[in-house]
């Protein structure tokens, strides 16, 4: 469930749940999904980390993500680029 967490140092942070198999990871909208997956210990693919190589493409089973800058890679529906997508709701993903 998406929740609002009050943090004394930073402004209010919206936190979303990312479901990956049996794992559940909490992420914010402050940065793209990839670095947050990595900090959670998930082995995720990457190369360019700026949206053109499509190495970080994963399946987006449900939920909403957005791209602050439109990525250069072709993103098929039902997929997302973890290196540059900001999670905008609770989502479920699966690796390719």
């Amino acid at each position, binding site marked *: 469930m998406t929740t609002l967490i009050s943090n004394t140092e930073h402004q209010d942070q919206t936190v979303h749940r990312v479901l990956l198999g049996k794992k559940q990871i909490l992420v914010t909208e402050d940065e793209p999904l990839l670095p947050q997956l990595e900090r959670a210990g998930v082995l995720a693919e990457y190369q*360019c980390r*700026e949206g053109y*190589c499509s190495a970080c*493409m994963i399946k987006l089973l449900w939920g909403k993500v957005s791209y602050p800058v439109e990525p*250069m890679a*072709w993103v098929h529906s039902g997929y997302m680029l973890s290196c540059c997508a900001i999670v905008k709701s609770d989502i479920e993903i699966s690796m390719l």
Partner: protein
Amino acid sequence: MSYSTFNRKKFDSLQEPMFFGENVNVARYDQQKHPIFEKLIEKQLSFFWRPEEVDLSNDRKDFLKLEDHEQHIFLSNLKYQTLLDSVQGRSPNVALLPIVSLPELETWIETWSFSETIHSRSYTHIIRNIVNDPTKVFDDIVVNDEIAKRAISVSKYYDDLIELVSLYNTLGLGVHHVPERGEVVVSMKTLKKALYLTVASVNVLEAIRFYVSFACSFAFAERTLMEGNAKIIKLIARDEALHLNGTQHMLNLMMSGRDDPEMAEIAQECQQDVINIFVEAAQQEREWAQYLFKDGSMIGLNAQILGQYVEYITNIRMQAIGLEPQFATKNNPIPWINAWLVSDNVQVAPQEAEISSYLVGQIDNDLDGADFDDFDL
């Protein structure tokens, strides 16, 4: 219809398909039917680098210290890379420029192919630095049976397309009798089919075959050996990631029918052929891995692990163009490769041209004397 270097017809290039429409006339980039190709050109130009920027003096010492079977792995891999870029440095130009119909795509093809010539120059730079007689290495590329097998499979689709397009440009559509070939059907359908299979085969070359070779190059560097070579391969890998974006876009645009509705039908009809191209290439790469490691493996990499990586990367590349993955390997058997492939740490000093975020010519000219008011000398 014969090719014209400056088509005199007046037409709206925004209405043309990517290929087999009007020959391009005015090279204009202020408007694009497919802006992605303009973005790729800009990005590729910002990546410009030269192999001589990388010092290879330690690589020579490292190479001499390698065991015989390791030298075989390193040199064979380098020969294979040389073959792939020999093909890529010319073939997109020769095969695709006579049939392209969009100015931004035409220039992307030229920019793409030019960057491959930098890669070829890199292999010369590397070979010249690590062996006394480069000719021995280069000559073997043509006569070595294992390399020859790869040469046939990477050039076949290009050659078929080039032959068909040259018949089309000289004799036009129809059934033509070609000496030693018999009757050859030149129709829009056969031309577009040859094109579609060529782009798929090039995608396999750049998105799979190259990455298998990168894995070998980086496996040495993981052991702090041949690190200058790895630095060059890192720059090449950054370029190749852009190139595979280009062919993935061409294939996806063709499949979607957004560019040319007839191309979508052809993509549908050829789907199994494309799957076969991917699966056959994966099989060839696994066989290549057996050849590389025939006299012994190295720490961190052997024929089995490289074979699993082939399957893994093939699955990923197939999904990028909307195809079902064909292999069971779901996880990357060599996750350490990502740290070598990542483009951001190619060069950390911003004054160096190869950092991707560094832009040449970004000087603020809008200055006046008042901007220096708070300066004290």
